[in-house]
């Protein structure tokens, strides 16, 4: 037991003093501490306390056995034992006549055990109701009644109840048939199910409900935890118990668990009938297909509100292969009004069976919709193979990439945990990140290797989760992790590969190298990992990287710092990046990547005129290409500049395609080429390419925003909104997301949301400044005064300094002033770096067909009409004016 201090110590002022003295003392050499305390502290007891704490601190700081590991970390092993011991202690030896073998699981109402029936010599599952439930006699009487009725249910889809009884110490139990198998919850945790499996399971549940409803028994608690997947198919558990348990629990004040499967009428506690079960089944079916639930609010009131009022996203929007008819079935189950749902389980069953019979071709129907689901985007197929050219293959590849099925190819799958810094990480964090990126890049370039999504991984790995849990959650065969320690320009990198089945270490290595050797280390890790996992490596990329000269270590270090700063996406970061890249070049004038880094910085600076930026960046890119014609990013930069500044579309396409071919695992190559396609009006190709990108890259806000942008440009507004909203759940600070989202909201008429989003834009959206975007949004939604204010301000500024013509075009279009808009549009061809996504940008619909605008397009070297854009697409465009 600890010694409690006297109560008059409790005041905050004293602690503050303690803190101060302690910190001050730590800063002084030990031999002077006493003197310090004497002078700074009059209070004798306080002084003594500080001295004592200092002594303790010193003990801890040294590495004597006595104190080693004090509060260092939670001993997971022993904690595990404790938890287990604690629960085992509660495990009874027998329940009724049944002999307990082991615990199977725990639910809201009680614990389930596997037990043996010595009389009938069979295994049974026994649910022991919790003490509070058992003690409520009113409830349990009715419970026994209900359970008796339920036990009369003898149907293959319902878990048979054998006995209801009480133990010697008055605990209520239910003995039922034991089935080997996992719960639907466990199955869903592995990922969305194949469509036919989901339909089959739903049908089986419906069959069980049909039988129960025929006997006027309503389940009331249909959810994946209550569905067992056995060899004979799905089985429903816990019939009728929820009702009694629910009443009891609300009486005793406990919560019944998640409301996610409750029907609206259930949340109100009234008007419940058989159709309540059909709602819940709808939620389950949705979850099986989409991988997450239709109502995803943070629980409690928000969730109840959502259940009662929100319309969930259609399943076939979340997952394109789901047939429309099946999505309609789900939607009907989720009708708020019971009278609008299926009238009976039989009806639902009939529909499900018809749907199963009419399953369309598995391949994604051409050009259909999709969305990144919250947890579904787990697999990244490094589909480096099929690049750019074959569209059908692209689409098919993407479909596979977006909705992973774990049943296939688990063998070549890996989860890469971010490398962690050991020791003083502070100044060297960028190196550790660099190491992680390099390894990620290397692994992603292996076609047969499936790499798991880092975001999902980060979640799965917190809270002390072990390898097996993480891997099971992500469906990977192996997990790679490592540490990096830095000292004086050198790195000590350790990496280990663990297999998921047992957490066994397959391979590990330590590298003691100069910090500039990250690439070499990453390559080595890739080689070893792919060998261990039995996955073939492409000889091509190995060849390419060895051909590239290794840069000077100081230069490389500066380069990495520059990249890190650049990635911050802030003006300060940009400035810093510029300094680093310049220094890198100063150290090593043949370091091609540094030139590109600097070129990128120069092109990002928004304050200077476009042609200024171009003038300065162009020679850098040319030099980089001259130094290394196989550098993908050099081609990307070259293509980008050809597009934005020279408007040399042919050269742009050439360079951007080459960039993609050289580095098919790099997301930016996709986005750049896609932007090109959008610029020249080849919108279908841009969309196809963007889709393929999602199969490659982990979902970062940046990626999601680009995808949202391309969807927006392809007039697929609802999907764009869905993707962008999801991007915000990952990171609300990526301002560009708001810009695109704002435009998308405008397109569907959600004007208030649009304005709100546009106000939050801090970064430019596809060539429009935040102000211009906002002005446009305000204008078209009728906020004329404010729109005019901004527009006037821009005009004013344009008289004195540089304002991009496109911004003024946007501002004037918002106010409906097409004449003025065209005035500015005519200045675009002369303004380098003013990109005008002529065909893609919906706001130009108002002026696209005017002679003046057509002349602008011609001057830009673009064809008169967009290739392949259909009239229907154009008709679908436009913004609703108030």
């Amino acid at each position, binding site marked *: *037991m*600890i*010694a*409690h*201090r006297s109560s008059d*110590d*409790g005041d*905050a002022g004293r*602690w503050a003093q*303690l*803190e101060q003295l*302690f*910190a001050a003392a730590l800063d002084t050499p030990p031999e002077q501490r006493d003197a310090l305390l004497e002078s700074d502290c009059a209070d004798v007891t306080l002084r003594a306390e500080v001295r*004592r*704490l200092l002594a*303790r*601190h010193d*003990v*801890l700081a040294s590495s004597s056995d006595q*104190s080693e590991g*004090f*509060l260092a*970390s*939670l*001993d997971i092993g*022993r*904690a*595990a*034992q*404790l*938890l*287990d*011991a*604690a*629960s*085992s*202690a*509660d495990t*009874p*030896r027998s329940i009724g006549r049944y002999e307990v073998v082991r615990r199977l699981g725990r639910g809201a109402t009680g614990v389930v055990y596997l037990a043996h029936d010595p009389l009938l010599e069979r295994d049974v599952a026994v649910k022991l109701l919790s003490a509070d439930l058992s003690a409520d006699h009113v409830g349990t009487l009715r419970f026994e009644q209900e359970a008796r009725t339920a036990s009369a249910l003898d149907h293959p889809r319902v878990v048979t109840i054998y006995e209801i009884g009480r133990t010697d110490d008055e605990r209520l139990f239910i003995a039922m048939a034991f089935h080997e198998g996992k719960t639907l919850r466990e199955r869903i945790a592995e990922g969305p199910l194949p469509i036919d499996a989901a339909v089959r399971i739903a049908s089986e549940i419906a069959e069980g409900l049909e039988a129960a409803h025929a006997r006027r028994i309503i389940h009331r608690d249909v959810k994946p935890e209550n569905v067992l997947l056995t060899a004979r198919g799905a089985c429903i558990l816990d019939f009728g118990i929820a009702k009694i348990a629910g009443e009891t629990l609300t009486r005793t004040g406990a919560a019944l668990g998640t409301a996610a499967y409750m029907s609206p009428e259930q949340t109100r506690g009234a008007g419940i009938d058989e159709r309540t079960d059909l709602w819940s089944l709808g939620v389950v079916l949705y979850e099986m297909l989409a991988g997450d639930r239709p109502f*995803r*609010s*943070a*629980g409690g009131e928000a969730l109840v509100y959502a259940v009662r009022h929100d319309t969930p996203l259609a399943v076939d929007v979340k997952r394109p292969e789901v047939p429309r008819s099946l999505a309609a079935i789900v939607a009907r189950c989720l009708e708020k009004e019971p009278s609008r749902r299926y009238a009976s389980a039989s009806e639902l069953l009939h529909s499900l069976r018809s749907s199963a019979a009419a399953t369309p071709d598995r391949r994604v129907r051409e050009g259909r919709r999709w969305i990144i689901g*919250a947890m579904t985007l787990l697999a990244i197929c490094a589909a480096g193979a099929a690049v750019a050219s074959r569209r059908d293959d692209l689409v098919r590849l993407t479909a596979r990439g977006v909705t992973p099925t774990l049943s296939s190819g688990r063998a070549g799958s890996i989860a890469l945990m971010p490398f962690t810094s050991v020791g003083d990480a502070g100044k060297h964090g960028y190196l550790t990140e660099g190491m992680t990126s390099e390894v990620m890049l290397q692994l992603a370039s292996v076609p047969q290797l499936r790499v798991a999504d880092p975001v999902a991984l980060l*979640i*799965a790995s*917190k*809270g*002390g*989760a*072990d390898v*097996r*849990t993480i891997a099971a959650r992500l469906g990977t065969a192996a997990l790679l992790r490592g540490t990096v320690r830095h000292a004086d320009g050198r790195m000590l990198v350790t990496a280990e590969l663990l297999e998921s089945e047992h957490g066994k270490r397959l391979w590990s290595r330590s590298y003691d190298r100069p910090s500039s050797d990250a690439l070499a280390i990453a390559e080595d890790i890739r080689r070893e990992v792919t060998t261990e996992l039995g996955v073939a490596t492409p000889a091509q990329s190995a060849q390419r990287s060895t051909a590239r000269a290794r840069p000077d270590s100081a230069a490389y270090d500066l380069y990495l710092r520059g990249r890190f700063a650049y990635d911050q996406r802030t003006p300060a970061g940009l400035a810093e990046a510029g300094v680093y890249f310049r220094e890198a070049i100063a150290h090593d004038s043949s370091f091609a990547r540094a030139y590109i880094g600097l070129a990128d910085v120069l092109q990002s600076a928004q304050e200077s005129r476009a042609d200024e930026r171009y003038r300065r960046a162009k020679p850098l890119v040319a030099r980089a290409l001259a130094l290394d014609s196989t550098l993908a990013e050099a081609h990307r930069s070259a293509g980008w500049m050809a597009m934005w500044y020279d408007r040399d579309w042919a050269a742009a396409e050439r360079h951007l395609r080459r960039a993609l071919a050289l580095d098919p695992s790099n997301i930016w190559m996709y986005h750049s080429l896609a932007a090109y396609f959008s610029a020249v009006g080849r919108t279908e190709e841009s969309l196809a390419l963007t889709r393929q990108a999602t199969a490659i890259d982990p979902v970062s806000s940046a990626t999601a925003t680009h995808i949202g942008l391309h969807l927006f440009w392809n007039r697929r507004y609802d999907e764009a909104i869905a993707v962008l*909203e999801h991007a*915000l*759940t990952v*990171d*609300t*600070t990526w301002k560009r997301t708001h810009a695109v989202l704002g435009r998308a909201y405008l397109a569907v008429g959600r004007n208030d949301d649009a304005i709100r989003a546009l106000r939050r834009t801090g970064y430019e959206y596809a060539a429009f400044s935040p102000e211009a975007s906002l002005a446009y949004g305000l204008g078209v939604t009728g906020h004329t005064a404010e729109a005019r204010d901004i527009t006037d301000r821009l005009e004013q500024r344009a008289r004195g300094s540089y304002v991009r013509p496109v911004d003024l075009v946007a501002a004037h279009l918002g106010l409906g002033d097409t004449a003025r808009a065209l005035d500015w549009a005519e200045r675009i061809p002369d303004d380098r770096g003013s990109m005008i996504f002529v065909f893609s940008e919906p706001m130009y619909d108002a002026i696209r067909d005017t002679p003046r605008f057509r002349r602008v397009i011609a001057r830009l070297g673009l064809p008169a009409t967009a290739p392949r854009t259909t009239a229907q697409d154009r008709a679908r465009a436009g913004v609703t004016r108030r």
Partner: protein
Amino acid sequence: MARRQLSRQHDRYTLQTTELVHEAYLRLAGDPRVTQRGRAYFYAAAARAMRQVLVDAARRRNATKRGSGAAALSLDEQVGTVDAYADQLLDLDDALRELERRNARSARVVVCRFFGGMSVEDTAQALGVSPRSVKSDWALARAWLYDALRGGAG
């Protein structure tokens, strides 16, 4: 065989806590307002939950130890360690609560770092303070707790 059983127990535990963590995350993830910072809060919440879970288990273990002889399914040779660990945790919890009375922030740092295994940066984010103050809180809190667990005022 003991080893295998132990690791099975270990997995069930980690499954429990990850489920705990996962469930909480799902709830948070459903909230569109969650940001990077929010994630740090989440981990801090998970750490608090972890503390509760363990302390509850320790109490239950203590209770059964003193109470009727329930079926002990744990391995005999491990019993001693488990009981000792349970006691240690309860002592730590008591001391932590004492610390909370004096300086809530330091106690929160301890919960984040010890029960949550959070880094200094994450802890700083979660508590809305600078990493430096986390480090100094940690140093003092550790010394204080160490002191409390070894008898306190001498």
